[in-house]
């Protein structure tokens, strides 16, 4: 349990509030051993600060971007702490403090639906350890054995004598106690807070306008920057005529940023943007200046039949299986580039002096933002700090990538001592994304005389995110993440047993940078696999549910969620007049998910999604109400992508520069979502991403059921099909 090895030197932690980090390093003269929060309250341990008024401040290293993680993680700590939930508040530790304290809070990364599923044990231990110390402190004061004391709702009671005290009263003493080496965690049956739909902790400021996002940050003496990076990925700045705009209102600086970008820094962002738009810039567009979507598609197409490919999952002999099949079915699919387009465009604020570089940024990964800060500033880690600000959406764009932090620091370095807030325009955000990878797939299935699937060949051809972002994680060149949902086992396990199977990937990388986009590769894999399953069932003359069930006997948890949605909609019984149904299931980020979509189609191309019934088995569920919201929200993101979203490439650059050329679902198009949260216990699956992948294939299968038409390239707008 390295997490709780405490470093007892005196530290002061900045709260999550804006500018609070400025108080860092302030040493407050209390006892020699106690680590203190900014307001002087004692830290019982790294996870828990208790104020004299019994307020419990729970530290959360992961980032809140709307998914509810600060509430969920606080529930986990509070469950073991036995504190009064109504007095719980949270704060972010800073990455700089984490470095100094040997990563006492573990991983900051908030992507891959891992906030809870990869930290459930150590955060609960953090709460349990603090509880033991608090009880011990009370027992010491009363000079009784701790074993005679009980605790509930932040009140410690010594039963034999009837004495009581509260956490706030003993926190100071508890903070001086040596933490126990081992603490026992509750049996899940005893949970009171975990599994309960307690209210989110962060709602109120989000309805009053008080919540401060990165784009809203204000610092004394701050200037504001607008930026343009070379529109062609990989290009450079050749020249720009600063003199043409340097006299415009508010303009303070016109600067080159790295090799490829130009910024205007002004009193206000609007002034900066107006001047930047007027600034003549000549780009050296580099070797990709002529690349188009058609070129990329052609390259991927060649991969579909290439000899060389990385194997992701295989068994039996697929060639022999197909050769002996009574019937062979083949289909080719294609999935486009897509932008994350979080509502809040990319931004970061930086202040640089040769002694200190500070960055304020909405980030999914404070440690990665910190690494970008140290790299761009050239300063050692102990002279850098990052303060996490609330995110206006992340969806993966703000996790592994901190290009905007690098830019902000490079600008601030040119204006030492002045804080600079860099805010991207929506256009910049659209043109400089880290796009959902482009992928094609060719699937060939073999059916025997009774319509059983005996062989499946599944070739992916397209981009590897890992090759672009974490090449050190390739396995002899293979990107295992490409096969999400298709793995032989694990968090993305394939849910079917096929006697002869070959799933492989011909890696075809492009100059368009790929990134982790909510759900990542499972989005296209679920469409390819689950639509093709329906194609096979149709060819076999079988019901799609019955056809799947035959292949799922060895995958009971996959089957359970599929059965749950089928039962709920009454699969097999007639649907309401004009309504058609489609199914999909997948294992995704450690959770089992399934959906049934009910659609009606008018005029052959106007789809109304009447209802989506979806089930998720996360193993353990922390907050069911928030899980339901993530499910419904994921369908908005996933169906927007299916119907409307594509980033096309022309002359090396992205063509869509704003909404609605790159569109997103509105309330009128929102289906009724019925969520079935069915935790079966024993494991911890993700929540934020898993369900996104089943919406699209379920709707596509329902559309095919309604019209007999199978669409295999996306988005649907390219076929004149709209969501109404």
């Amino acid at each position, binding site marked *: 349990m390295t997490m709780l090895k405490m470093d007892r030197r005196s530290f002061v932690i900045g709260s999550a509030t804006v500018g609070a980090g400025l108080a860092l390093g302030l040493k407050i003269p209390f006892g020699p051993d106690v680590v203190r929060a900014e307001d002087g309250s004692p830290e019982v341990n790294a996870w828990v600060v208790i104020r004299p008024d019994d307020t419990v401040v729970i530290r959360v290293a992961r980032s809140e*971007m*709307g*998914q*509810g993680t600060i509430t969920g993680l606080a529930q986990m700590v509070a469950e073991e702490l036995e504190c009064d939930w109504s007095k719980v508040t949270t704060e972010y530790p800073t990455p700089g403090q984490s470095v100094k304290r040997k990563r006492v809070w573990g991983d900051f990364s908030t992507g891959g639906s891992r906030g809870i599923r990869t930290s459930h044990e150590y955060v609960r231990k953090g709460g349990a350890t603090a509880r033991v110390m608090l009880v011990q402190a009370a027992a010491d004061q009363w000079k009784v054995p701790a074993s005679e004391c009980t605790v509930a709702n932040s009140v410690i009671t010594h039963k034999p004598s009837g004495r009581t005290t509260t956490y706030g009263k003993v926190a100071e003493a508890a903070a001086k106690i040596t933490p126990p080496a081992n603490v026992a965690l509750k049996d899940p049956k005893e949970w009171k807070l975990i599994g309960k739909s307690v*209210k*989110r902790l*962060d*709602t*109120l*400021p*989000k*309805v*009053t*306008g*008080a*919540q*401060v*996002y990165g*784009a*809203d940050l*204000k610092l004394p003496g701050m200037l*504001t920057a607008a930026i343009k990076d070379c529109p062609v990925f990989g290009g450079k700045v050749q020249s720009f005529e600063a003199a043409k705009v340097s006299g415009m*209102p508010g303009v303070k600086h016109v600067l080159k940023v790295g090799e490829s970008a130009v910024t205007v820094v002004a009193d*206000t*962002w*609007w002034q900066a943007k107006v001047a930047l738009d007027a600034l003549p810039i000549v780009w050296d567009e580099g070797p990709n200046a002529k690349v188009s979507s058609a070129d990329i598609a052609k390259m991927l197409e060649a991969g579909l039949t290439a000899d060389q490919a990385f194997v992701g999952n295989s068994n039996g002999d697929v060639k022999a299986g197909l050769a002996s099949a009574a019937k062979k079915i083949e289909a080719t699919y294609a999935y486009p580039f897509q932008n994350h*387009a*979080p*509502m*809040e*465009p990319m931004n970061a604020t930086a202040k640089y002096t040769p002694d200190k570089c500070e960055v304020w940024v909405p980030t999914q990964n404070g440690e990665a933002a910190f690494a970008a800060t140290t790299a761009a500033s050239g300063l050692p880690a102990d002279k850098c700090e990052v303060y996490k600000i*609330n*995110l*206006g*959406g*992340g*969806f993966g764009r703000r996790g592994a990538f901190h290009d905007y932090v690098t830019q902000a620091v490079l600008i601030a370095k040119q204006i030492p001592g002045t804080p600079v807030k860099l*805010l991207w*325009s*929506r256009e910049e955000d659209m043109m400089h994304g880290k796009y959902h990878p482009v992928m094609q797939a060719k699937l060939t299935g073999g059916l025997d005389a009774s319509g059983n699937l005996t062989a499946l060949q599944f070739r992916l051809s397209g981009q590897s995110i890992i090759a672009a972002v974490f090449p050190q994680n390739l396995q002899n060149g293979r990107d295992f993440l490409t096969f999400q949902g298709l793995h032989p086992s694990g968090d993305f396990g394939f849910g079917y047993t096929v006697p002869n199977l070959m799933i492989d990937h011909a890696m075809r990388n492009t100059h368009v940078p790929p990134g982790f986009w909510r759900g990542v590769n499972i989005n296209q894999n679920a469409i390819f696999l689950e639509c093709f399953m329906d194609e096979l069932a149709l060819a076999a003359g079988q019901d799609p549910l019955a056809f799947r069930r035959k292949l799922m006997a060895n995958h009971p948890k996959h089957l359970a969620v599929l059965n749950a949605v089928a039962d709920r909609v009454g699969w097999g019984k007639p649907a309401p007049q004009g309504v058609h149904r489609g199914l999909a299931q997948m294992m995704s980020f450690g959770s089992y998910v399934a959906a049934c979509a009910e659609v009606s189609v008018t005029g052959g191309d106007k789809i109304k999604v009447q209802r989506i019934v979806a089930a998720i088995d996360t193993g353990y569920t922390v907050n069911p*109400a928030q899980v339901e*919201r993530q499910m*419904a*929200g*994921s*369908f*908005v*993101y996933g169906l927007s992508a299916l119907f409307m979203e594509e980033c096309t490439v022309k002359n090396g650059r992205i063509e869509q520069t*704003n*909404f*609605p050329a790159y569109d*997103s*679902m*509105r*309330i*009128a198009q*929102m289906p*009724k*979502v019925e969520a079935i949260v069915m935790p079966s216990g024993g494991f911890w699956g993700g929540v934020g991403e898993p369900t996104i992948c089943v919406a699209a294939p379920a709707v596509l299968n329902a559309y095919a059921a309604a019209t007999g038409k199978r669409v295999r390239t996306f988005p649907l707008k390219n076929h004149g099909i709209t969501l109404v």
Partner: protein
Amino acid sequence: MRLTVNGKSHEVNVDPATPLLWAIREHVGLTGTKYGCGVKVCGACTVHLDGKPVRSCVIPSSAAVGRQVTTIEGLAAGGALHKVQKAWVDNEVPQCGYCQSGMIMAVAALLKDKPKPTDADIDATITNICRCGTFQQVREAIHAAAKA
């Protein structure tokens, strides 16, 4: 120029062509009103101008002179949450929350116009983008606010 925002008059030194959004955010200093697209599509910048919802990213500041601008910060009257804000809290609508200022302002205007909106009224009027996908809760909360 002089802008009246949430009942308070502000003297702002701003170019008349500057969009009202940026005058509110950078000159008046109220940042609850958000920038999402700048081209009148997403609705994140929605404020009320003389009680009517407008997308402030495409309205020149000069057009607001002599008129009443209401932002999300001015919606709660006398410290009490507006019924839409209250319904938003009760139904836990926000996820990231970035779109919600504009969403709430659009809904508050809808309810003033149609105190008991139907689903069709909602579909026709509320066209704000929410990338987190809170629409199911938005719809429930609108109906809850209408009953309040």
